[in-house]
């Protein structure tokens, strides 16, 4: 029989290297998309998947994340010119968190840089960055970059039992891998790169391998993880975990500068509480002058962690400096009930000058379709809502 041609092939989302296994476990058919890939919102139950990350372990498909390999004698200088953080002197097999800005100091994206060799780096980020990279290499002679996004299969593996599972998988010495470090293993004839990184604020690793080994890795990992509560988790659970960890998300906490329409509706690193990523002592970098000015003047809005009374998530709430809600001072960017901390938490952009005073959230919530309004007191929280010791400890203590 002739294979019928899919007339809508061009419309369909691409499938990641782990898709066959994920599709079998996506009992709810809850798919959305990320960078053109079919991508699970959740597989079975968001809350359940969230608890796998906090209580046992789970895998999150990061194949759709953008990955660029940047090589050459000028690679380091070029990246150092592009991002705000100083990456010179980074040791090999280390990962660092970075952001990069426009000339006006507005944030384009955040991501991570992996130093894989003296002249070899990998940059990862949420959105495509090709055009900006092309601009950034201008003036540098010996630098080459390749979009590896489709050529590396990557799986984030997060949760308290992850180290035990990787040990069982046969990754010798994995327990000695420190946060933000990288280790290489041979695996089923291929090369497996493991970084102790993640987006959940918990103990966790990211696994990087050539696509042809992807399903083999999945099967081996799930076999080893069987007795350790392994489960795939989707975007919804990730979003919960990252909010508890205090991590920012594009389209929630920040607008990517290059996609922002309204003047100053994008953000600077200072406004996002990422001032620690900006190093004025290093040689010139993109956005430096504007950021110097921003630092001395202070950002108009500052990203703030809030603990809010009651249990109604303050989604999209407006913030005021008085209970009567007469003066607006900011807005909530992400909010949820935190099951592990048992607190009503949020990230919010608040006008910097009002940070010291009272903060009230005007929350709307529905009760069987009837809309109700509630004004709740907010308390500023300095530390991440969730930061267990195991996330930093090496070796991570028994789960």
């Amino acid at each position, binding site marked *: 029989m002739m294979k019928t041609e899919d007339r809508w092939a061009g419309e369909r989302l691409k499938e990641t290297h782990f898709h066959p296994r994920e599709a079998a476990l996506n009992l709810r058919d809850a798919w959305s998309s990320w960078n053109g890939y079919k991508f699970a919102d959740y597989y*079975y139950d968001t809350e*359940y998947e969230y608890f796998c990350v906090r*209580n046992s372990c789970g895998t999150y498909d990061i194949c759709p994340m953008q990955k660029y390999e940047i090589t050459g004698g000028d690679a380091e200088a070029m990246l150092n010119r592009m991002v705000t953080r100083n990456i010179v002197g980074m040791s090999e097999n280390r990962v660092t968190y970075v952001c990069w800005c426009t000339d006006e100091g507005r944030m384009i994206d955040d991501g991570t840089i992996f130093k894989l060799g003296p002249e070899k780096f990998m940059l990862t980020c949420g959105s495509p960055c090709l055009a900006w990279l092309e601009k950034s290499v201008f003036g540098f002679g010996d630098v080459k970059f390749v979009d590896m996004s489709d050529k590396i299969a990557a799986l984030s593996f997060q949760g308290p039992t992850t180290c035990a599972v990787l040990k*069982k998988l046969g990754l010798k010495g994995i327990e000695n891998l420190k946060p933000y470090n990288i280790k290489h293993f041979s695996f089923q004839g291929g090369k497996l790169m493991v970084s102790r990184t993640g987006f959940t604020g918990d103990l966790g690793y990211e696994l990087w391998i050539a696509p042809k080994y992807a399903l083999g890795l999945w099967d081996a990992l799930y076999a080893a993880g069987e007795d350790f*509560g392994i489960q795939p988790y989707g975007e919804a659970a990730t979003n919960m975990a990252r909010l508890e960890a205090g991590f920012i998300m594009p389209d929630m906490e920040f607008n990517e500068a290059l996609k922002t329409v309204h003047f100053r509706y994008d953000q600077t690193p200072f406004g996002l509480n990422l001032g620690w990523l900006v190093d004025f002592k290093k040689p010139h970098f993109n956005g430096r002058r504007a950021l110097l000015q921003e630092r001395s003047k202070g950002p108009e809005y500052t990203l703030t962690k809030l603990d809010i009374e009651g249990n109604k998530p303050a989604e999209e709430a407006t913030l005021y400096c008085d209970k009567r809600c007469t003066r607006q001072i900011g807005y909530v960017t992400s909010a949820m009930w935190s099951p592990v901390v048992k607190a009503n938490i949020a990230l919010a952009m608040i006008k910097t000058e009002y940070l010291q005073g009272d903060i009230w959230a005007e929350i709307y919530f529905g*009760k069987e379709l009837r809309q109700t309004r509630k004004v709740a007191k907010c308390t500023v929280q300095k530390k991440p809502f969730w930061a267990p010791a195991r996330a930093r400890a090496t070796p991570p203590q028994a789960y």
Partner: protein
Amino acid sequence: MKRYDAIIIGAGHNGLTNAAYLAKAGLDVLVVEKNEYIGGAAVSRELHSGFTYSSCSYVCSMMRQAIHRDLNLTKHGLVLVPYLGSVAFGDDGSTLVSYPTEGAGYNQLRRYSPHDADSMFRFQADLTRYSQLIRKTLLRTPPDPTSFRPRDIREMLFLARQFWALGEKELYEYIRFFTMSAAEYLEDYFEDDLVKATMASPGIIGTALGVYSPGSAYILLHHVMGDVDGNIGAWGLARGGMGAISNAIAGALQEHGGEIRTNAGVRQILVKDGKAFGVALENGDELHARIVVSNLDAKRTFTQIMDKDDLPPGIYKKAKNFKIRGSSGKINIALSGLPKFTGVPDNRYVNRGGQTFVGSLETMERAYDCWKHGRWSDDPFIESVIPSAWDPTVAPPGQHWMSNFVQYCPSELADGPWTPEKRDQFGQTVIDKIERYSPGFKDLILHMEIRTPFEIEAEVGLTEGNIFQGELTIDQLLFNRPFPGYAQYRMPIKNMYMCGSSTHPGGGVSSACGANAAREILLDLRRPNTVPEDDFYDE
């Protein structure tokens, strides 16, 4: 001699909660506990190497979220994990899975009865309505209906408003509900026996009532009114076992400067001129305090550690007649692997949660008949959970422990006292039954802890082994708990209070009794209140 501000007798989770709130208010508090470990019926114990049992209570849903948050119990190590996917087994081996999504649950119920699949929506709505009402009373002191003090009137009005909000028709239904049996109540909704039996089963847990006994409908409600993160009726596991709850509360207590002394059983509450002033320990030591708080059940408090002559007339008798009948056993089993159950697909979602061996309404009622005649049930109702399938910290990888709650098991046998042999026979009855549904189960057993009401009383001090510190029947609920006129945590002796599950809102790991008692004590001592309000009044 040192004089504490308060001595709390018993380091059950309520005693610890009470002490934590008193310490938070700046009082100098001491908790004295007879066992060498704390937690009472909310305890984790490693009785077989590598396996941590929740020896008594095993699942959590009533814990007041407001208290978890207020005492920062997460910082003190407490993480509550909801579990999913329980399966109920009928006598003939048929199964009913509780799926987390409405669609899957609906499709399954239709296989038994399209009518029941439809009725389930109405049943859930009605039960949620009743739950919401009763939930609002948990972290409040019951009003005294005969008093004219402004506080009592205010609280009576609060209650009246909640009831009134049900609407006239539902108000009648609700009053009816309180006096009905679980089985009768379910007749209004369902036709299939397995569906009825499954839904009725929470109505008999921990109580000396049968599915057809008036009052069991309320017990059903008591078991579904809790929540995990706002999901009413959901149940969770405490990471590290139920002892993690007690330990976290103890951590908060110590953070606020409170003291705990274990191996310090109280022989007697010391009273002079009608006022409590301390305790005498079993080892002969005397400790003094401005107030004394008992975490023990009402019967034990007034008939065992108090002198009858110190009590006003009538109280001793009330305490002696307090309904606190033991009816449950608990078997904790260490397993070399995950048991498989006939008819249950072996997937990560349904074979991992709990198992309830309900049989049928008739099987459950027959099980109750045995209890009435002073025997343990020969075909008992069992509610099982395998915590290790969810919690990686309580058993070695690949191995498991299973908690089996058994209904019914009497505290006194018709044929003479409990003996270790009889206890083991009781355990055998239970594992024989499980084996019927899970061939090969017995081969997995590495270790067993068998507990009848006799062991439960001996270890935890729950009189007759009653898990709730007194039956949850209308004559012993709200302003009647433990006795009419004494529902506000103050006892007939001056400077003496109660804070255990014998007080409102009753049994279960909720911390509510202890917190409510603390609020009353602080009021009497003219200290600012440290106890938070519950956080769902806009439910």
